[in-house]
């Protein structure tokens, strides 16, 4: 079953008088539970593609289905709820709410969903924090955590809502190689434990080995699927 189906996706940016064709006709299907890496040089359109899939940018043309919903036709409220209920996001930086500690950051999306009791939320968040190995850092605020620890919190938060997909745009770009590897290993583990679909982008060929499959992208087009 495909969790993502993309057909003829185009994305243009107006840049002054010129138009930047960031995505020029992407066709892509991703299976549920997959761990996919999108690889390509800088400027090839990786971020743009992830943003469109993640409902934080809109397509210029084409069709994007996430969990059987055509997201190109949703209004702001629906898009927001889509992000909350179906998608987990891991950014390079600025992942966490500075005034909340690690545990509270992980609880945050669940509190927005208002589906569970406080107790259930706390339990679920603690479980995730535990799984990403931050049991001893529950009460630490982002400023008191290292870069790698922050990415771990971000992963826990992305997973806590049981989303259909987790998107990570170059999650290791700001980390040293050892920490970066740990994070990728963690994503691999979490993909197995929680059976969540993971898509991460990278321009580093070294990280490809962590992915189940790789999508190569260049100049806004998919080169070949492997």
């Amino acid at each position: 079953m495909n969790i993502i189906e993309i057909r003829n996706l185009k994305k243009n940016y107006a840049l002054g008088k010129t138009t930047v064709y960031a995505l020029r006709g992407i066709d892509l299907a991703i299976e549920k539970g997959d761990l996919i890496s999108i690889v390509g040089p800088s400027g090839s359109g990786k971020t743009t593609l992830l943003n469109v899939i993640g409902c934080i940018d809109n397509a210029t043309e084409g069709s994007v289905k996430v969990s059987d919903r055509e997201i190109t036709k949703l209004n702001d409220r629906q898009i927001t709820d889509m992000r909350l209920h179906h998608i987990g996001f891991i950014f390079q930086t600025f992942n966490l709410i500075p005034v909340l500690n690690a545990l509270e950051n992980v609880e945050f999306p669940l509190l927005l969903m208002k589906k569970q009791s406080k107790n259930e939320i706390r339990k679920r968040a603690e479980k995730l924090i535990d799984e990403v190995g931050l049991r001893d850092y529950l009460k630490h605020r982002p400023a008191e955590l290292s870069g790698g620890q922050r990415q771990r919190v971000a992963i826990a938060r992305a997973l806590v809502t049981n989303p259909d997909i987790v998107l990570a745009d170059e999650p290791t770009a700001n980390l040293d190689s050892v920490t970066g590897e740990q994070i990728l290993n963690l994503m691999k583990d979490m993909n197995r434990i929680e059976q969540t679909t993971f898509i991460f982008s990278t321009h580093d060929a070294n990280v490809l080995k962590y992915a189940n499959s790789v999508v190569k992208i260049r100049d806004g087009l998919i080169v070949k699927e492997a």
Partner: protein
Amino acid sequence: MNLMIKIAWRNIMRHRGKSLVIGVILFVGAFLMTIGNGVISGMDRGLQKNIVNSFTGDIVLVSEKQESDEVFIEMMGKTVEPINNFKQVDSLLKTVDDLQKWVPIGKNGALVLNEEGGAPGFTFLIGVDFERYQKVFPNTMKAVEGRLFNPGEHGVLVPTGARKQMFEVSNIWFIPEGCGVDTTSMFKEAKEMRSNLVSKQSIVFMGMGADNTSTDIRLGIKGIVRYNALNQIWGHFGIVDIESYRNCIGYIAAADKASLVLSDADKKLLGGEDTDLDNLFSVDGMITENVFAPPRSSTKTSTAPKAATGPSLADAIQTDLDDGTYNLVLVLLNDHSKLDEKVKAVNQRLKASGVGVRAVPWKKAIGAIGSMAVLIKSALFVFVMFLFFVAIIIIVNTLSMAALERTSEIGMMRAVGARKGFISTMFFGETAILSFFFGGLGIVTGYVTVRVLALCKFTSDNDMVQLLFGGDTFHPLLSGGDILLAVIQLTIVTLIAVIYPMQVARSITPLDAIARE
């Protein structure tokens, strides 16, 4: 909700500097607004007490022929039109609800003839049946020398201000009948002249009627009076019994029988021919109850001197007095706040019945003073509004900047699934908390300050300042309503100030946050 307050509170603590800036603005704004409210409120109450309840009443009835509404302190030379049918007006007023009490008075200007031969002075005269007047305006003045009127008595009560003014013009120091010169009440210049000070116990007024029907009239001074409040302003008004007033202005008196023709010697005196003061005061008859001078050359027959015929005016009964001429009827309301409504109601009634009288609200009747009071109040109001404005501008600026500085954080929250409403509420929550604490503290501090200021009992002799004070003493006042007003003002400031920054914060998208990376 819990989460929101937690985030809002921690954000406040995190951005302490900015929070403090906004907090201080809210504090100062709320503080000054509260004090402003207190001063305005105190002024209102003071003006009500010291003008309306002491002097003008809420509504002033004037003749329809009266052009200007400013009947109390009008330009010199202009006269107030007479009301000759008070009885009719009186029975009409009885049919209007919520009028508490009223009193008819005479009010016009008079020259104070200088018996020493110098230039004449000028004063306003208020002609009243004193007993009746005091029932409507009780305890508004006290005699600092001499006494107030006895029932039915003729004479004049001279305010301290008028005495001083007359002294400055004529160098004559007026004292009450039977009293000596009291140096303690004198001001410096008078004291310096003490050795050759000319003092007199009666005044010769020359009324300034509309036509040339005025009469010189000598009135014994019964007392030197001081108004309990706004003595500077009310000091321009000498109080005369109504019948003497009518004679002086040349109106038809209800009972003008008790007049006494001046002897020839006295005529000479008035003409300034006789300067022998000892002679004047040695004549017992001169300082009698009431001495009417003969008409001046221009006067008409209606007020020609009457021969003295027996009984004093003390015998003239109320109805007799009301047959004569007045100028104004001063009406006090049960509920002062209903002024405009009642003016309308009274005017309707008056018009329908065609008595030739119309109603004017006190602020108009008091003219410049009323406008000045309104002006001072407006200035205060504008000041408060200005604070409002400045506070809003600064807060809008600071908050908008704060919103933009937090683009990545807010964009990330949105990316994780926070709706616009969440962002607005969070943002509003922060401002509301600041407003509640700092603004609340400002209101409390303002309240305490107002109480302390009221306890200080600052006084002033300056007319302008007295208007601001609403009396001689500064007595700012905060009622529950005023505090509620301050809270509402604070809320409005907060709401207005937060709208734009909230809009800024709401419109931040996850993309904005990513673009920042």
